[in-house]
């Protein structure tokens, strides 16, 4: 049969909503990796916590086209409040409406060994994961989140945003941040440096990472690289690429012991940013039990039933009305 039941439902749902709202309907969301999908591989075992990525992220995203850029801004929105900060330097503690990426530290016991869960420490990076099927884009009532059909970056169009913050509730990683201190607020999150990557550039964070902990590249290459690293023997030397995954600039370094998992391969149907770590991911604040299922599907089952409710209520309601009012009809 050329038309599957699901397609039929989709068509019917779109038709019903078309009637209801009088506007053209979209097809439901893609669950496959876009053709030229790009992303980041963050290897926590290489990260030395220097925060160069965070600094460059803020600087470069305040240039025209960047996610933090606003017309007439004189300097980046620095956050100079924090323990021990006398207002001198940008010291962000959390992802906020002013900060798109942040490096945090995991500490345990005596904090002696890097990448050890017990008596160890590890750095980790938080930013938008760029889901293959982003929940934020699916839940946004204004259509303010879009996934680029070519490179797959999930970006934000402020002019369409109404500020309902459903994206914050829906995001499985709790990523989108809100400008709570603004009277006309925007949602802020990493947009994978769209203004740089569309001209063939790399993201600001990968550009400044001195150790290759963050590398930029095609998602397919990043996944291969991640799997290659997991297959290495701890203690062996490996030539880690710097800035981009296929870079010629490589630094030799001893391989640390990885948790046997690439985070972002299957979580919520896969993400374009993927992670490697020596410490299990839940210690780094990444949710453990994310199924290999695109989240918009959870909602779609409900939405697909709407046209049937339309049909059922109108047909059933009219029938009931006819039956219950037949005596009155006789009288008149």
């Amino acid at each position: 049969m050329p038309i599957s039941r699901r397609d039929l439902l989709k068509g019917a749902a779109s038709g019903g909503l078309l009637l209801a709202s009088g506007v053209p309907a979209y097809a439901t969301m893609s669950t496959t990796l876009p053709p030229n999908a790009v992303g980041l591989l963050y290897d926590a075992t290489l990260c030395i916590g220097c925060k160069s990525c965070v600094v460059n992220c803020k600087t470069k995203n305040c240039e025209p086209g960047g996610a933090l850029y606003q017309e007439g801004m004189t300097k980046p929105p620095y956050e100079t409040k924090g323990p021990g900060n006398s207002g001198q330097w940008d010291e962000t503690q959390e992802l906020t409406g002013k900060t798109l990426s942040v490096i945090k530290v995991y500490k345990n016991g005596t904090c002696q060994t890097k990448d050890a869960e017990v008596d160890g420490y590890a750095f980790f990076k938080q930013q938008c994961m760029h889901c293959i099927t982003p929940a934020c884009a699916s839940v946004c009532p204004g259509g303010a989140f879009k996934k680029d059909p070519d490179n797959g970056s999930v970006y934000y169009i402020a002019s369409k945003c109404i500020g309902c913050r459903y994206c914050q509730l829906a995001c499985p990683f709790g990523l989108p941040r809100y400008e709570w201190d603004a009277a006309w607020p925007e949602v802020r999150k990493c947009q994978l440096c769209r203004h740089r990557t569309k001209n063939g550039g790399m993201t600001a964070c990968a550009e400044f990472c001195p150790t290759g902990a963050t590398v930029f590249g095609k998602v397919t290459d990043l996944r291969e690289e991640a799997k290659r690293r997991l297959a290495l023997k701890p203690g062996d030397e490996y030539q880690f690429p710097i800035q981009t995954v296929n870079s010629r600039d490589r630094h030799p370094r001893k391989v640390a012991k990885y948790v046997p998992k690439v985070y972002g391969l299957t979580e919520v149907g896969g993400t374009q940013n993927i992670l490697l770590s020596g410490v299990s991911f839940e210690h780094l604040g990444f949710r453990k039990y994310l199924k290999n299922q695109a989240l918009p599907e959870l909602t779609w089952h409900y939405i697909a039933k709407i046209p049937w409710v339309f049909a059922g209520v109108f047909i059933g309601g009219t029938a009931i009305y006819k039956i219950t009012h037949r005596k009155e009809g006789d009288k008149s």
Partner: protein
Amino acid sequence: MMDLTRYIGPKYNDLVQKLLDDRQTKHLGIKLITPFTVVLVLLIGAAAVVALYRLAFGIGAASNLSDEWPWGLWISFDVLGGVCMAAGGFLIAGAVYILNWKKYYCVVRPAILNAFFGYLLAAISICMDIGRSVVIWKALISSQINSIMFIVAIHVVLYTSTLATESSPMFFEKVGWNGALKTVSRCMVGIVLFGVLLSLLHQSSLGAVYLIAEGKLSPIWYSKWIPYCFLLSAIMMGLSMVSFETILTGKFFNHPPPREVLSGLGRGVMIVGVTYLALKIYILLETPGLVAMVFDGSFLGNLFLLEMAVGVVLPIVFLSFKAVRNNINRLFAVNILVISGVMLNRLNVGIFGVQEFATRSGGDYFPSAMEWILTLGMIAFAILGFKICAKYLNLFPQHH
């Protein structure tokens, strides 16, 4: 009576005079200036100031919401609660105009008006809650069919208009616009049917908003059945609200509450309550480990038990006795149980159920003074609006 001819011309003065003519409802003995209404007006005034402050300085300045806790009191109480309180409108309208259950005709107007105010309350609150209030219309033209919020937004607008149309005959009667009255009356069945459809979808879609929050909303409340849970509990709440408000207006407005209507509503609450309870028990048994989670004495487990006991189990038990269904004071008490229980359910889903996730991410939330004031002001607005309508419109038709 004031003569406004000088300010608005004879045509509009005539209209105002007709509207303000309360001879028809004299027997209800409604007084507009009482200590209670003064408090209501003060609350509304305070809420208006908060609303202006919120619009001028932003959502962050007025509320205690944060990145870890993006939705709070306004969404849970005003929007989820307000809409579910309004469910009585479509139920009574459907019973009277579609099912032809004539005995409920005497409560159809207050039920619809009550629903209208519930929806206004929800609509105004959501306008205050979203960060860019004045562009809220953008949610209606986006055609984001993957978004439950888009569907919710369309339903709020359509159904609020539907409720206004359903209430309009009272107004047309009063000002003597017979042409308009005739047109609306002729289309009433179609309008009511449309209202039933919108309500079924809207009540359930408010639950469906949380479908995508798997793992964020506690499994005690999260399940793929949550749209049905919302719909069934809203029906319980809606019927109880109509009963509650009929008894209340009967007490305060010299207007004897019709007993057989109240016992019928009580029976309705019981039947829907049993269905809802059965669904909840099925969900409990279907999800592995959920029973243990509910009975482990944790805060969330206890909240769930409280919600189910107060809002569902006790009302079903009480209503199964004829002596309760036929006694107005006992029915009134049961209504309060149902309303509090279902309201607690909405707060559980909207606030407490996401608490674990929010706290794990480092956030904590207690509504700010301004959030409380706006919510109280909105409730005061609904009560005062209903009272004014009861005074000036023929809200309780004696017979048909």
